[in-house]
């Protein structure tokens, strides 16, 4: 586990060792720490838009004593394509490096436009994903801690549910077709177990999007398999 100060120190180390400008997006606990919504995190999750940038950071991390984890299990998409993040294990923490998508959740221009925070560490620029996007990415996982984090996000931020609904529709087209089902399950669970205030119409609209998507898939005679990220 690391806190914000340690995370900043690590980013400074990376930034000072990079030979060119690299940009990435912090998601999950790492982003929540920048927002002040969390004090510590187990893993630092970063999304890159260019493979070269990911490789450059991976190399710096390796030179700083982080080792790449090879046996990553539990990352599936319904189209059977396995998208694995690069996991770099350190003594106290782990860096998860994603390229363009997070367990099927596609990072696109609108998500980048929603970014409201930039952190410069020399040659490393870390952008912070919006609370809405962090929340949606948490829905793709099955870890207990992610539920705690998601509950905290809804409690602390003024979540724009319109963004969530429009992004859900978009993700069904460009990312995971089953995304509305995952999100519906996730929010219903949060509502029941964490007593989180999610407006009724949001759940209803999500269900509508999910049903529409299932009908479309049925028409195309497509079967989907939904397995969540467990690592």
């Amino acid at each position, binding site marked *: 586990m690391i806190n*914000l*100060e340690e995370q*900043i120190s690590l*980013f*400074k180390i990376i*930034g*000072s060792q990079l030979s060119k400008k690299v940009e990435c997006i912090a998601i999950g606990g790492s982003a929540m720490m*920048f*927002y*002040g*919504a969390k004090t510590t995190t187990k893993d630092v999750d970063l999304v890159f838009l260019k493979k070269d940038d990911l490789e450059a950071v991976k190399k710096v991390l390796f030179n700083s004593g982080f080792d790449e984890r090879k046996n990553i299990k539990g990352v599936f998409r319904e189209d059977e394509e396995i998208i694995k993040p690069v996991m770099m294990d350190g003594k106290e923490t782990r860096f998860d490096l994603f390229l363009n998508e997070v367990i099927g959740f596609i990072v696109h221009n609108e998500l980048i436009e929603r*970014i*409201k*925070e*930039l*952190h*410069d*560490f*020399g040659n490393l620029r870390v952008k912070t994903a919006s609370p809405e996007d962090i929340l949606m990415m948490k829905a793709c996982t099955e870890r207990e801690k992610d539920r705690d984090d998601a509950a905290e996000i809804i*409690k*602390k*931020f*003024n979540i724009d549910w319109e963004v969530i609904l429009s992004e859900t529709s978009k993700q069904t087209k460009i990312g995971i077709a089953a995304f509305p089902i995952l999100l519906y399950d996730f929010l219903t669970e949060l509502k029941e177990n964490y007593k989180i205030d999610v407006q009724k119409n949001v759940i209803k609209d999500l269900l509508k999007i999910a049903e529409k998507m299932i009908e479309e898939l049925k028409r195309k005679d497509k079967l989907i398999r939904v397995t969540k990220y467990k690592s």
Partner: protein
Amino acid sequence: MMDIQNITKKLEGLQTVDSIAVSLGIARRTAVNYVWALRKEGFVETIYGKRKIRMYRISPIKAPKFGYPGLYEFLNQNSKIKVYPPYTERIYDHKPTAEEMIVKAIKTGNLRTILSSLALFNKVKDWAKLSQIARKENIGRKIGALYDAARTIIRVRKMDKKTRKALLRSKIDDKFIVKYARTKDLQQIEKEWKVSFPFNKADLEAYKE
């Protein structure tokens, strides 16, 4: 006992005492007390509007502040012309200087941001450094032109001759300081630096208000 988290969520954004009173359906005096309590917890930042009217920027979370302010915070701290920050930026690896912030502001290509950055010419300590960064970014002559424009309206430190010559000789990617924006004012500066100037005299008058 007030629920601070809920109140901050309800009041997120810019508020005045009166708008808080209306939003929460409370008396003005009670609203003042709420602001006091929220500020004590670190959820409120006070800024001053026109005629010194107090405005409160309320945020539901207390983000820890490490590092140094980025471009927009730097401009708002050092310039009379304030800019609404499109995002929050922090710099961690070094303390930003006026020299690099001028270059950063010009690179945004945004009219108001560039106008606001003119005030930073008075904070420049190392002209050689400014010239070096500007030439690296291929905006040397734009910097020179903006410096001359700043001199017409505000008190600015004098640029040494060596820097001026270096900037005059420098290359630029395109002649527009703000894309496709040009005016007929300040033509002498435009001629000397061979750039298209985006402001007219009235824009610069904002520094006199």
